[in-house]
């Protein structure tokens, strides 16, 4: 069984070895750089993907969602790497590859953030956590759409892109560090620490590189700064080798009820926004680009909404709600209520009859028919009593109720 520290140490060793390789082996030609660097850089991500999938399979509840999201994040990163690789191989439809590379990269950042927001040390069922995660992803998609629509497209991309890039590097690292500092629960503390080390290390390296390193080599691949793209996966892989947390049982809270319309309105807003922008004639020369962003957002949002609907289908009656739990108690209550109701309703008139008849008898002027009336009232009261006992005892056979007397 791999221990987290060993896994982390192995990962860091690999990253260092890669850095040394880039320093020792002279840089080949510009076209060969990605072909060598990208497969080597993908190794930690593949390892992290495999370990995260294994962790997701062996965990329950919110933790399973947590690891599934990290698996998806690793997969998204690999998609982005593969797109870059194909791009460097000059395969056709380059624009599609650029879109794929960007979507993969942003997908990795968003999924990492959402995974951290699941916070598996809290008691949540898998369904609740998944629904919440999908909603977070939808929110992030909406945020990116707005960012593209209002900032990136009008500003032309490059400058605004750098700021956004730095911000989205910092956010998962900050989230992991905050969780590592605040969490005391046993396995999760290690998980968050490993993640904080991975993401934090990458952030630190990136900051140093950006501030101290040579400006020109910013986007040249196959150099020691490529560690930035590998360290987060070292963290994820180390975290995935930690022990699994407790399994939260007995949480019946239904997920996301009432937020359905909010999630559904996510697919309505982008096209309405674009139509409004066109209607008021805002920057008509950029309208086509913005419409493309809108359509991409609609497709993504509809896929996410479909996922959310599958994760939390509309209200359905759970068998537990229809279970016949308190039926015996209710039946008993009904029997008692019936017995006392019969007694109450019938004994009142019977007592009145018997009482008046007895008063007449006591006065000494009794006719024999009055005596018969008293007898009849007593017989009736007996019959009521029998019914009452039978019902209270809950038996059908009157002989048994009589035997109890």
């Amino acid at each position, binding site marked *: 069984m791999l221990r987290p520290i060993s896994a982390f140490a192995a990962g860091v060793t690999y990253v260092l070895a890669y850095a040394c390789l880039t320093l020792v082996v002279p840089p080949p030609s510009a076209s060969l750089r990605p072909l060598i660097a990208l497969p080597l850089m993908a190794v930690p991500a593949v390892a992290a993907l495999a370990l995260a999938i294994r962790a997701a399979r062996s965990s329950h509840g919110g933790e399973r969602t947590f690891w599934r999201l990290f698996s998806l994040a690793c997969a998204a990163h690999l998609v982005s790497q593969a797109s870059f690789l194909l791009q460097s191989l000059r395969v056709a439809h380059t624009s599609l590859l650029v879109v794929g590379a960007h979507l993969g990269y942003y997908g990795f950042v968003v999924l990492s953030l959402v995974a951290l927001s699941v916070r598996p040390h809290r008691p949540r069922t898998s369904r609740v956590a998944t629904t919440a995660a999908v909603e977070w992803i939808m929110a992030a998609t909406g945020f990116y759409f707005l960012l593209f629509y209002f900032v990136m497209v009008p500003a032309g991309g490059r400058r605004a892109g750098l700021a956004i890039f730095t911000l989205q590097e910092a956010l998962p690292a900050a989230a992991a560090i905050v969780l590592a500092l605040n969490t005391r629960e046993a396995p999760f503390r290690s998980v968050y620490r490993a993640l904080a080390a991975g993401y934090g290390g990458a952030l630190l390296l990136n900051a140093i590189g950006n501030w101290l390193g040579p400006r020109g080599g910013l986007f040249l691949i196959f150099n020691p700064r490529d560690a930035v793209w590998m360290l987060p996966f070292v963290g994820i892989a180390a975290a995935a080798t930690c022990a699994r947390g407790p399994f939260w049982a007995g949480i019946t809270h239904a997920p996301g009820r009432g937020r*359905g*319309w909010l999630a*559904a309105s996510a*697919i*309505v807003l982008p*096209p*309405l926004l*674009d*139509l409004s922008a066109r209607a008021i004639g805002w920057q008509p020369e950029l*309208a086509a680009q913005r*419409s*493309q962003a809108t*359509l991409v957002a*609609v*497709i993504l949002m*509809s*896929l996410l*909404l*479909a996922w959310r*609907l*599958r994760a939390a*289908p*509309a*209200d359905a*009656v759970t068998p537990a709600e*229809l279970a*016949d739990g308190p039926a015996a108690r209710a039946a008993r*209550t*009904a*029997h008692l*209520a*019936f017995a*006392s*109701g*019969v007694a*109450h*309703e*019938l004994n009142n*008139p*019977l007592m*009145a*009859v018997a009482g008046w*008849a007895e008063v*007449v008898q006591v006065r000494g*002027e009794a*006719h024999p*028919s*009055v005596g*018969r*009336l008293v*007898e*009849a*009232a007593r*017989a009736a009261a007996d*019959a*009521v009593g029998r*019914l009452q006992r*039978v019902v209270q005892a*809950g*038996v059908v056979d009157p002989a048994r109720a009589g035997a109890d007397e």
Partner: protein
Amino acid sequence: MTLRSRPHVMVAAAGAAFTAAYYALIALGSPRSMTDALLVVPAGAALLLHVRRALVTPGRSAWFWRLTSLGLSFWVVGEALWSIAEFLDYNPSSLTGGPRAFPLALDVLFVGFLAPFLGAMALRPHPRHGRPEPVALADAALICAAIGFVFLRLVFLPFQGAPGPAYSRFFLVGLLACVLALVASAQWRWVVDPEWRTIYGCIGLAALLYGAFNSVASGFARALQPAGSVSDLGWIVPFVLLAAAAVPPHHAPRPAFSSSLIVILAGAGPVALDGLLGLWLPATGLPFEPRPLLLVSVSAVMALGCLVRLLLEERASRALRLEERARAEESRRAGRLQALASLSASLVEDLERAMAALLFQARSAAPHLGDKAERVVEQAHRAQEIVRGMVDAFRLARPAHRQAVDVGLLLEETVHSAFDEGPSLHVRLEGTRRLPPVWGDPGALGAAFLHLIRNAAQASPGGRLTISAQNDTRELTLRFVDDGPGVPSEVGPHVFDPFFTTRPVGEGLGLGLTQVHFIARDHGGSVVLEPAARGATFALRLPVRERRTGQPVQPPWPLSVAVLTATVVALAIAIWPTAAGRVRWSESWQVVSALGAAAALASVAVRRVSRSRLFWGLLALGPLLWGLPVLLGLAGFPDIWERSHVAAELMLGAASLSWAGALLVRPDRPRPRGGPLVSWLGAAAVLALCVHGYLFALVLPGALGGPEPLWRARALLAQGVIGAGLTSWALALFIRTPGMAWRWTFGRLTLLLGAWAGGNTIAGLGYLAEPAGGGLADLGVIVPHLLLAAFAVTQMLRESHDKDLVEAVPREVAETRVASRWWLAVASVLVLEALMTSGASPEITAARSVLTHATLVAIGLLLATREALRAREWVATPPAARRPDADGEPPSRLLKLVGSAIYELSGQLSGISALSRLLHSDPGLPVRVREDAGRVQERADTAGRIVRNLIAALPGAATTAQRFSLNRVVQEVVDLRSGELLSAGVSLRVRLASDLPVLWLSVQAIRQVLLSCVDSAALMLRAADGGVIEIVTAADGDHVLTRIHERPAVPVAEPRRLDADLGLSLAREVVAQHGGALSGRDAPEGGTEITVRLPVIAPPERESPPAGLRAAGR
């Protein structure tokens, strides 16, 4: 499973084989005429299958298949002619036309073949199972949006700029295919019957593919694609689908429509389709323009559709969840109560015997029980009643004979009899007419309904109970919804338990709902208490007798005829060779359709009465105002539309106004309080506001200058807005109207007004482009009018359901709310003027100012008159009659003492009467003593009556007013006296009027009055050796009459002196106190007739009962 048992698979396989053969022949270089002749095969096969279906299908469905066969035969003949022409070296594919007559005939066949399909769809032969689910409607809207996108992308937008004649032909094919695809696909989603689902699905898909491929094959109306192109599938696949529609049905499970899938399709579908077209069309040499605006718009529409669908689905699933919970609770309760019933069954007989013995002994011992005798017997009787109630509640008695029960009728009868009991309740029946019969015991079902009505009356005295009915193929659901305080959640599970009551002791046993439970279960149904926001809702479900597959749809042929006519008119417009002829043809049809619609609507109006007649009459005025000017223009009179656009706009405005007036009439509502004049004044004020807006925004600027095209565009926009407003108004009425018949009318009217508004806008756009008219855009005027005529004829054929409401709830709008609405309306007139003054020319501003002042004065006058009339109507109610218990001074001390003494005297007299009755009936006593006892009893009874009359006449005594039915009181009087009178040789005959209004008086006092009258008559008849007392009730304007006519068997020499009868004198006083009159006369046919005249007084505004009382309601 063999292929034979799956005919659809066979059809698909045959279609695939044919397609392969077709393309193989083309690849092998077969001549064009041969491959085109081959294309007759799929359509011909489909034709044969459709003809076979038409021959073997009975009823209305046969017409469906006949029409589709006709359509297919058009296409087959057209294709055959096409290949013959090619064989004879003609070139029918030349879009510019070869020999003159030949393309025209082909056009008629190829364009017209869709017309019979549309007519067939309008027949709607599928069985109907109630209203479609809301989710299905949302899905249908989504499907329609998707189909609309496909046709816009592949047919209508690419046709822009195509050459004229070919353009109109292909445009019309696209239009007809689009309408067919929309109608059939929408039906596919909401029709429940699996067979018709398949048929509609196949037709919808066939129309979609035919429309799309036809457009591509025509090279977007520019040049036909060569043989062997992909678009040739358009002549094969649709006909394979049509053939599949006609093969005998096999069991097809209902598809599940997953929300996730729909969201993905709606979100990514349009973009994906657009991407595919972007790859395919340029490859076939056809132009492809990216249309991001269209894509974003379609995405927005689809996203909105998805949102609506999800919300509806969430609501439906919540309702289902609640229903399932209620069912689970019901099933638990059934087990519980059945156990109780089984436990009690063995002992109840014992209990019944004991109670019978007790009652017998109590009666026997009564003479020896002194002053308690009467109460002892009463208590013994009560005990026996309780046991009987238990037997009834548990349905332990032998079940009665079962028969087919008309639940609607039974419900109405029960409601009427409940009114006779006098509960203060407004009951409203919704959709209870034309319900399927239920197999059951009418007596038991009536008892169940009565218990539920009583329950509501006790929960919400003076409140409202709405009984609504819903039915599907399996069961009928009746919902009893009251507006009381509702049932607390902790009490809810126990309301059906026996002896469970929250009412005070002695006011109810708590067995009524138990009985309802057992009656429902006995009939194979259930009753549940449904959770509700306010009030209580009891849902009673009963299985319907015949599990029919569905109800027939209303007469469908008018719509079918209208659709066929519209298609023929459209076809003629599309292919008419000369422009002048086209214009004349179009104008003639505009007149015919408008005047036809007006005539049909007017003939509906003639058959109706009262406000319903006015409603239909105003509806008829709309098309009449529209059609007359065109008719005058056709007849050679100066064309009103051409000469003066202001006059034209005024006519159009008047047409819209007449429809607004029709919607204002609200024939679905009961006559509002305050009489017709008051409501007409209110309606006139609303119409004045509408006229103001119309003149202000449209007519004045048009009359006083401004460039004409701009003004026309603005007028078009205004017409569209007005049309949309009328449509929304009709939609609001459709949503808010409870009665099924009027819902149907308003629903259809919504669709028609929407079609009218849309059509008018299209026609207006057409006139902007081509002022002479005569284009396909003219259909925007013709089609809505034809549909309107079809609607009117259908309405005529339907039964009249105007009286859907049994007892209507009076319109209760708080006066302050009405006043504030009017204040806002008047303020909006001023604000409109303030906002619009800037930017307009001085003449327009001045004219608008005059108009505003005139409107304000007119509205002010109308409202003031209305208020004055309302006030007068209120004063006109006699103050004495307004509240029987409100006036009068407090009784003096002496009067109170006298009152107490009279009460005491009444008690003593009752005692004497009871004692003497016992003595009289004791067989052990000597005969003489018993006779004396009988006389004493008679005297005591007479004295007792006088005393009771006195009590009724005492001020402040027993004068609490309540709602009651006079018929019920008469019935009680007859029940009380008939046995006694019959033994004395006097028979009672009663004739009760069915339409008596409910009274608001002291029921005890009136009962006593009637008893006095009957007793007085009986005294007379006893002396005359018997006779007949006839009691007749009747309504007389604001009064209700009761005539008590005594007819002696032997004529009496000396007439009665009514003024000498003390009882009657007292009764006369009592009646006078209640604002009525008591009079007597010698009847011409002999005997004396006493008439009691009682005023009908509206009950005061309902006061909400105190919280404690409300909680104790159940």
